[in-house]
């Protein structure tokens, strides 16, 4: 942590970011293909709270309350959740290159989602299957990377590549055998990521999972600090490293699985956003986790605004986050190299 980080009191920074997130969410409710005047949006929101008489076309109410609101909340939760999960994973793995996508959780969860679409109708199977396969992928990566006592960075990333490739191949197999008219479109949409089918129903499935697992991660943020010191140091401080690691991993996998159920695979958020947060508050997870979550939420809401509002056709959000995330990550990488500094 540098002096610069101490210059601004954390509570002030957190307050500003929270206000920013709320502002971005409200602003996004006024954005979209269907024109609804801003003051009308405000009145529609107020009328939903106080059930006043509506003096505007019913389409505008359904645009704001049934289409935009669940979608904005969905991208808020998914963005916040993924960034939080990414920050926690980077702490536990002591590795800045880690994100739900890099260590195979996204591919595993995506495959679970594809299996759920192939064999079941409706949403109920998506979260459990995405969770099981996401966890399976993470365990596999973990065991590949933990030949030595301290997990080495390289073998972890390579393990992630291997497991990701394997689950991606399984998903492709699923696409290959899927009924092209009745199952395949859903799987394809899943893999590209999209909030287009957000609804209150979908949100009801995913939101409790993301909120609970996210809150739990937030509550144990101090332990993530200890874990990020390394196994020996953490043990010497009297921590049960194994149990706490698994707790963090289970929470991050749950969050990833729930976002997969919400919007399919949305990459790069969990990898890039924690780095932006680290530039703001340093690597103390007590600050890093909430700041990552708030930044991630705003980031994904804005990305989804582009996805749904820019053209008549929907742009899959996975494409946008990758297009924005990869160069951003490359920039951060270069910047760190120039500084010759460590990541954490």
């Amino acid at each position, binding site marked *: 942590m540098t002096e610069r980080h101490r210059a601004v009191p954390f509570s002030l920074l957190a307050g500003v970011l929270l206000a920013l997130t709320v502002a971005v969410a409200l602003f996004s409710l006024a954005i979209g293909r*269907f024109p609804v005047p801003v003051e009308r949006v405000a009145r529609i929101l107020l009328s939903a709270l106080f059930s006043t008489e509506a003096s505007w076309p019913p389409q505008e109410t359904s*645009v704001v309350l049934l289409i935009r609101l669940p979608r904005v909340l969905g991208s808020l939760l998914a963005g916040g959740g993924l960034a939080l999960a990414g920050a926690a994973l980077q702490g536990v793995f002591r590795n800045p290159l880690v994100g739900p996508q890099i260590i195979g959780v996204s591919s595993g969860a995506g495959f679970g989602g594809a299996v759920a679409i192939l064999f079941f109708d409706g949403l109920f199977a998506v979260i459990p299957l995405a969770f099981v396969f996401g966890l399976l992928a993470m365990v596999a990566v973990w065991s590949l990377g933990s030949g030595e006592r301290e997990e080495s960075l390289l073998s972890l990333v390579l393990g992630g590549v291997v497991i990701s490739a394997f689950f991606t191949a399984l998903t492709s197999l699923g696409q290959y055998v899927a009924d092209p008219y009745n199952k395949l479109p859903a799987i394809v949409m899943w893999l590209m990521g999209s909030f287009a089918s957000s609804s209150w129903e979908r949100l009801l499935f995913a939101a409790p999972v993301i909120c609970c697992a996210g809150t739990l991660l937030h509550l144990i943020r101090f332990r993530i600090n200890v874990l990020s010191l390394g196994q020996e140091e953490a043990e010497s401080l009297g921590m049960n490293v194994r149990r706490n690691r698994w707790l963090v991993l289970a929470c991050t996998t749950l969050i990833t699985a729930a976002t997969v159920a919400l919007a399919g695979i949305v990459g790069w958020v969990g990898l890039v956003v924690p780095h932006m947060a680290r530039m703001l508050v340093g690597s103390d997870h007590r600050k890093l986790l909430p700041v990552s979550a708030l930044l991630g939420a705003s980031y994904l809401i804005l990305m989804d605004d582009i996805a749904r509002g820019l053209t*008549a056709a929907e742009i899959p959000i996975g494409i946008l986050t990758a297009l924005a995330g990869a160069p951003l990550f490359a920039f951060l990488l270069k910047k760190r190299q120039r500084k010759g500094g460590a990541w954490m």
Partner: protein
Amino acid sequence: MYRMLGNRLRVVGTGLCALFLVCFLMSPGDGAQTVVTDQAGREVVIEGPVKRIVTIPIPAASMVLAIDGSSERLVGMNPLSKTAIEGEILSEFFPEALRIRSDIVQGEGFQPNVESLMSLAPDIVFQWGNFGDNLYIPLLDAGMKVALFKYGTQEYLEGWIETFGAILGKQEKAATILDWHRKTREQLTRRSEAIPDSEKPRTLYFLRFLANYQVAGKNTHNDVSIVLSGGKNVAAEEIDGFAAVNEEQILLWDPEVILLNGFERDLTPEHVYANERLRGVSAVKNRRVYKLPLGGYRWDPPNQETPLMWMWMSSVLHPGRDRFDLPGEMEKAYTLLYGKTLSRAQYEHILGMERNRGSAHYEALFGRAQ
């Protein structure tokens, strides 16, 4: 080229078209050589009578069954051709068609397994010509005869029918079918030209609805059909080809009539009516959402029954105007195409009377009173 020819031919008449598009030669003496020019402009020469045909483009299988009036010569097809036969009218007309091999292609693609294809010993394989040459080069390398089709316009479709007529030795039947296609098209063109613009309903066709909302913009067969049937395709201005859109965009377009694809098996108008986010759309408020029929093939893409689809569509777009006698037209068409008569139950199954029952005018347009 085909469009240009098509325009010219409509002026000159329909009699000479076969000479331009397909040339069918009986060489003197042996009487057993077939020569056709396919839609990639390649000359395909087949020695001896054509007994074994494989079709890879999806609507092609049912066209061969229709023009040949039998399933004897079709030995292989796309599995998605078969799903349009299973449980549908063609499985009642040609029950043996269900036994035709369909495992040469898998999934959504059109890349056949060359050796599986060879094991069928086809005299000719019909394949797409405009989705990359890797779809047919391996077949040519393996020594198979391949005729290439192109997709998109009514002129291409007419070319398919002529080619099948030539290959199957059913030129007369093919010419009669083509004549029916052209006459219906001319009739509908005149009819829709007479409808004032303000009375053409805003129409939206969904290629997919359940997983995401894919709609047909300009340069699609569906766009052509909507215009021909006297509607306005709301997606034509902003969408080229097919694209996924969101609910806000649908609300913005506010279609008066929604047409649902025949591909998604379980999709019915009820899915649209039940979507509370689309409640404000005119087509939903007035219950004018219709699922496209599935007859000898799904009626959405170009196929042998396309004129019936136009008649159906012009009826649902303009229920108040003079309309075609669809039951009568279907009876004539099915006699011409398949040599079969439709029972009342078959007719109702094809038109999806049950699925569309909750939609406005449907019973009055096509129900028993008709």
